[in-house]
């Protein structure tokens, strides 16, 4: 992975559904607060996917409204109160649904982009 990434260049416009998938996946590894989720996504995507707060928080609150994640106020590592999110049972089901949709999509994309390798 290239080290230096320029912000503006690699700000891939994340579709709403895609962001949901990333958040749900990140929470699979345990409860996390908003800041932590954004850090996790950035790290695991090799600095490419940098979710800005203007997209992250609406997504979190929306997912909470849809009952795929639930929130709890806990004290964080540095002794601060933070809002921790975690997957619900329904959220887990939604995650696997989204994952399979994503594979279908990427297979379809591959089919179109690389027709010889069918």
């Amino acid at each position, binding site marked *: 992975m290239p080290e230096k990434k320029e912000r503006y260049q690699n700000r891939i416009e994340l579709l709403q559904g895609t962001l949901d998938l990333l958040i749900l996946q990140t929470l699979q590894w345990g409860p996390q*607060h*908003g*800041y*932590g989720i954004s*850090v996790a996504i950035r790290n695991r995507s090799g600095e490419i996917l940098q979710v*800005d*707060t*203007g997209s992250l*928080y*609406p*997504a979190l*609150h*929306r997912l909470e*409204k849809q009952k795929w994640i639930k929130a709890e106020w806990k004290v*964080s590592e*540095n002794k*601060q*109160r*933070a*809002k921790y999110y975690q997957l619900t049972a329904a959220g887990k089901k939604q995650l696997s649904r989204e994952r399979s949709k994503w594979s279908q999509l990427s297979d379809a994309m591959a089919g179109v982009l690389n027709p010889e390798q069918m």
Partner: protein
Amino acid sequence: MSFWRRKTREAELDEELRAHLSMSVETRVARGADRKEAEHAARREFGNVGLVKEVTRDAWGRRWLGDLIDDARYGLRMLRKNPGFTAVAILTLALGIGSNTAVFSLIDALLLRSLAVPSPRELVHISFGPPGTKGPLPGPMFDRLRERQSAFTDLFAWTNAPMVLTEKGAARPVTGAYATGSAFPTLKLKPRLGRLLNWQDDEAGGSSNGIAAVISEAFWIEHFGGDPGVLGQPITVDGGTATIVGVVPRSFNGITVDYAPQVVLPFAFDVALHGKSSWFHTMGRLKPGVGFEQAKANLSTIAGEVVKESVPSNYQRADDLRNGILSLAPGRSGNSPLGETYGRELWTLQALVGLLMIICCANLATLELSRTLNRQHELVVRSALGAGRGRLVRQLVAESAILAFAGAAAGIVLSQWMSALLVRYIEQSDFPVFLDLRPNAASFAATTALATLTVILTGALPALHLTHVHTEEMLRSGVQRSIARKRHPLTASLLPVQVALSLLLASLALLFAISRGKLLHVDPGFRVKDITLFGVDFERGPEKGEARLDLYRRMLGALRQAPGVEAASVIAVRPLGEGGMDESAGPVEGNGPATKHLFENLVGPEYFATAGTEVLAGREFSQFDRFGRTPVCILNQAAASFFFPRQNAIGKHVRPGEPNAARDTCEVIAVVADAKYLSLREPASPTIYYPYEQLPNFNWVGFITRSHDTSAAVAAFKNGLRRVAPETPLLPPITMQRQLEDSIGKERMTAALSLFFGGLALLLTSIGLYGLQSQRVVQRTAEIGLRIALGAQQKDMLWFILREATAVFAIGLPIGLALAFAASHFIGAQLYEISPHDPRIYFAAVMTLLGAGFLASSIPARRATNVDPMVALRYE
């Protein structure tokens, strides 16, 4: 979403985002960054906190209430910051909405509203009269028609009759009515208490309990305290007693719009008292399935027989009756004599306030638009801070909505006040008007909607314009310069429209005002100052014939001897009092024509001296012109020259048209000057005066006094009446001045109100002009400063600013003149002795507008000349 939950959610969101920020900072600090730098970097990475909160809130879902409250709070703040604009805007709204609602409510009450009965459209009026007139039916005709008709479920008759209620020796006037037993059932009314009159009550003498009566709910509450025990109680009116059997519900106020009967009696009561039946104002209800035209056809087939059979051969004016026709008219809204009298004037007023509404809307638009330019700056800044266009528009709309709401509320208050004023104008002194004047919902809604639309559209425009303005450029180079040359196209066209309409209103107002002025100065042929008229009703009392005459004589004596009273006499038909008796008569000698339309009046001795009408020849009636002596009469100039052209009428004789033993030929003993009894506008009709002594059974003959001190005359009358006939109720006296003013009530109302509205229009237009000019000066301060610095004179600067006003007037005035010219055609009939095309009027109106415009422009123009060029140029 619950309001309180939202607050905690807000707080939580705030904390959540703050936590994110602080963690971001801590991470950077942990990696070795300087705290200050870390905070900057963290903030930059986080982005616009406000914006993040906004979009997160959006994810919570629709939250109308919270948003609305926010927008409302913002709107209120903006309005408070601009008190001048807010005050003028609310006032303008209130004026437009209030006056329109008031006038239309009155029109609705008098002309449009249906009677409060089920299916009012089925009701019809049936009238009878010589072709061209409409009147009530004689009793026998009513009965005949009721028997023969087949198009109506039933017919009923109703006659309004003021009565005198006697209780424990005290007398008070009440509004009463007579109705046939079929009335309430045909109207399909249900009683509030007890029962209403029905066909059984038509029986002569009533039932075993006596004749039945019903009272109105208002009267029941006011006079009997709403006591249910009122049923079965006796009630004494006009000397006769009836038994109360029920209460009429409050919603029904009789069939005449401005007369609400407190007591309704069956005609049997009238017959028992007076031995004869009245003339019947007839109404009917169409059978289900029968249309109006069908009923008309049915009526015309049976009308001939009915009329022939029901006119008694010895009836006075039998010829007239036999030529009469029965006619049908829709009766949905009952009877409205006030409506007929004032209808045309009210619609004229409605047109005037409608125009005023247009001016109000134009003014509002102009005000808002000139604010646009001030707000651009504010909006640009907010847009740069991230507010979306939709959000801005929504907030401006909210602000305008608050304005419209406040204006509408003020409008309701104003309309109540104006309604009261209007009713006072059309009230005649002796008949208080009863009108159910709830503000008309439709009119209020329409005007409010119009005003709201105007305010919102023009208020939201600044936000809609935002895309045309380069945000950065504006912030950098200053708002002034970038919009200096921008001029909203709408303002250019609105002001000339306002000027035109104001000119129209001003011209009409002047026409009406001058018309009224001329009427007030018409010489009616009798004295107006110091004259007081007294009505008296000896009819209810026991005295008849000679005994009644004696009452009059004694009253006259008491009046003449009273201190402060210079002269007194007797008079039957009050001048300009809307009464009047027409009779036919012809001269005995000579070859003058006979006439059917001689105005008849009864007067007492010394009447003409008292009233100030000049006796041209002959003598006044004296106490010797009594019953049994030679019948005498006095003619006015018009009658004398009509009957006896170019001859001396004195000594000649006049024969009344109908052969009547009591009034054979009478000798003319005097000729007096013409006097206007019917109307100030018409020339005096030929009039014949009889001495009241020779027609003793006349009722409603009253008194006239001349006295410098009106209160002395009134006191004298009161004392006299108490001594001579203590049982007779005291009717309120009226001065001749008031009587005259009442008789031109329509003209006075139209003149006063059109002046009021014209003045308002002028004021609004001036404000609009002032606002626009001020705006211009502010906008072009730099340009003005430059010109002054380059040596422009004061008058050049004045012209520079006034140039625009001149353009507005140059367009507006000709349009206004054309409109005024056209409109004055329609009101020509209402004017008196002034031509709708009199150029002096238009000249005066134009001058007035120019004067107002000049005044409005002069203040901003003066400001322009006082611009200090150094300050102006530096301001850039």
